[in-house]
């Protein structure tokens, strides 16, 4: 999915702004979990809205997580069917991808977090190599970026607030589902580390969009469905270091696996909270469900983009990522003030 396409030349400014919004968001989400002494967002619903309301909201969030997980799986499989294996059916590739995700989830959350640390190192290494090769290749032109914000901040705002703020950064809400269980009382160090990593990943997204803009300018970037892969295809140094898009696809795959695992794990924590069954026994059914939904997420690639970057951020991300956490925040503040009063009255 390429971000902020309608802004064209200044597309790299939008994720830069959203990085700082994302940092605040992440701090806000963890603040809710920390100050409500609840482990997960589901228990928080139960505590603040009672049994009935809480479980309805919890089920809605599980559906939301599964749906976003399916969307992401479909997005990655489209990349593979278009760029790597053109005549292998999409269903088969999604199945193989799901088998890997199943095994990664099967080994338990402590292990797959260590695994993601390894993925982090690999993706960082691949990204550095990619940036060095783009610069060494020399076929870039900084003038594509100028004039920076030629039409002012105006055209940037709609895509900032209706698309980029929700798509990569709003989705941090998935962490609220299991951050409490993984780090019992969410010490300050964890929150700081989380916020710092959101900053780093935001800068990473900005840098990728910058590279895409530099290599082939705004008009092609708008039409390219997988801009990073197309940017990697243009590198050709000395007629030997030439075709490294496989490296970039490997890095994208690792990122996709991490994202799908996080969302699936968040959904599974919800299901475990509501049905009380063992986490490992739920992996197979729910991932099969995600695969089936990923087949029917959209009919063709353009629909996938229109719905994914147009409709969903506004009508699904905003309520679930901003409105409900805001309500929770207010409820927690009222409760803590109310508790402070009757503490004072008792004393």
């Amino acid at each position, binding site marked *: 999915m390429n971000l902020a396409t309608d802004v064209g030349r200044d597309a790299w400014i939008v994720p830069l702004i959203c990085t700082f919004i994302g940092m605040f968001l992440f701090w806000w989400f963890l603040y809710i979990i920390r100050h409500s002494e609840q482990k997960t967002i589901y228990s928080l619903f139960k505590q603040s809205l009672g049994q009935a309301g809480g479980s309805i909201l919890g089920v809605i969030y599980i559906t939301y997580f599964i749906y976003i997980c399916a969307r992401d799986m479909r997005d990655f499989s489209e990349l593979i069917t278009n760029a790597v294996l053109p005549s292998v059916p999409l*269903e088969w590739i999604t199945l193989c991808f799901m088998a890997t995700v199943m095994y990664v989830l099967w080994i338990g959350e402590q292990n797959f977090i260590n695994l993601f640390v390894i993925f982090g190192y690999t993706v960082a290494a691949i990204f550095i190599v990619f940036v060095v090769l783009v610069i060494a290749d020399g076929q870039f032109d900084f003038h594509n970026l100028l004039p920076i914000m030629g039409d002012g901040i105006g055209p940037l705002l709609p895509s900032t607030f209706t698309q980029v703020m929700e798509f990569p950064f709003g989705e941090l809400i998935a962490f609220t589902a299991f951050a409490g269980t993984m780090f019992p009382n969410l010490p300050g160090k964890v929150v700081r580390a989380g916020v710092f990593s959101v900053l780093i990943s935001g800068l990473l997204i900005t840098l990728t969009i910058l590279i895409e803009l530099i290599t082939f300018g705004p008009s092609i970037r708008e039409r390219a469905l997988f801009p990073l892969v197309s940017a990697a295809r243009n590198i050709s140094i000395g007629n030997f270091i030439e075709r490294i898009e496989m490296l970039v696809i490997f890095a994208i795959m690792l990122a996709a696996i991490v994202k799908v695992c996080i969302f699936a794990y968040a959904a599974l924590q919800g299901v475990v909270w509501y049905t009380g069954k063992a986490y490992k026994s*739920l992996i197979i059914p*729910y991932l099969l469900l995600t695969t089936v939904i990923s087949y029917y997420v959209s009919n063709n690639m353009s629909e996938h983009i229109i719905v994914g970057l147009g409709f969903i951020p506004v009508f699904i991300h905003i309520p679930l990522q901003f409105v409900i956490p805001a309500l929770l925040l207010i409820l927690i503040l009222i409760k803590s003030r109310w508790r402070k009063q009757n503490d004072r009255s008792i004393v």
Partner: protein
Amino acid sequence: MKRTYFFILMFLLVTALDILCLFQNEQWNFLVMYSQSKKLVVAILLMITAIIYCAVMDWKERKKPGDGREALRDQKNG
């Protein structure tokens, strides 16, 4: 059978959300999407395996009320 019911509920809810998201752009029509036989067959197959898996797990748990972990172990080396 709590697990299977919850699973079917989730399946319906997510498909509902899926169709809701797709419904808003006009030229999307239901038939084209759900009439591709290849995709339909694979989807049905997967859903059946998922539901059967849930039912088997539930059935195993019916005998031992403990949580699913032992059931899972029996199922694996049963």
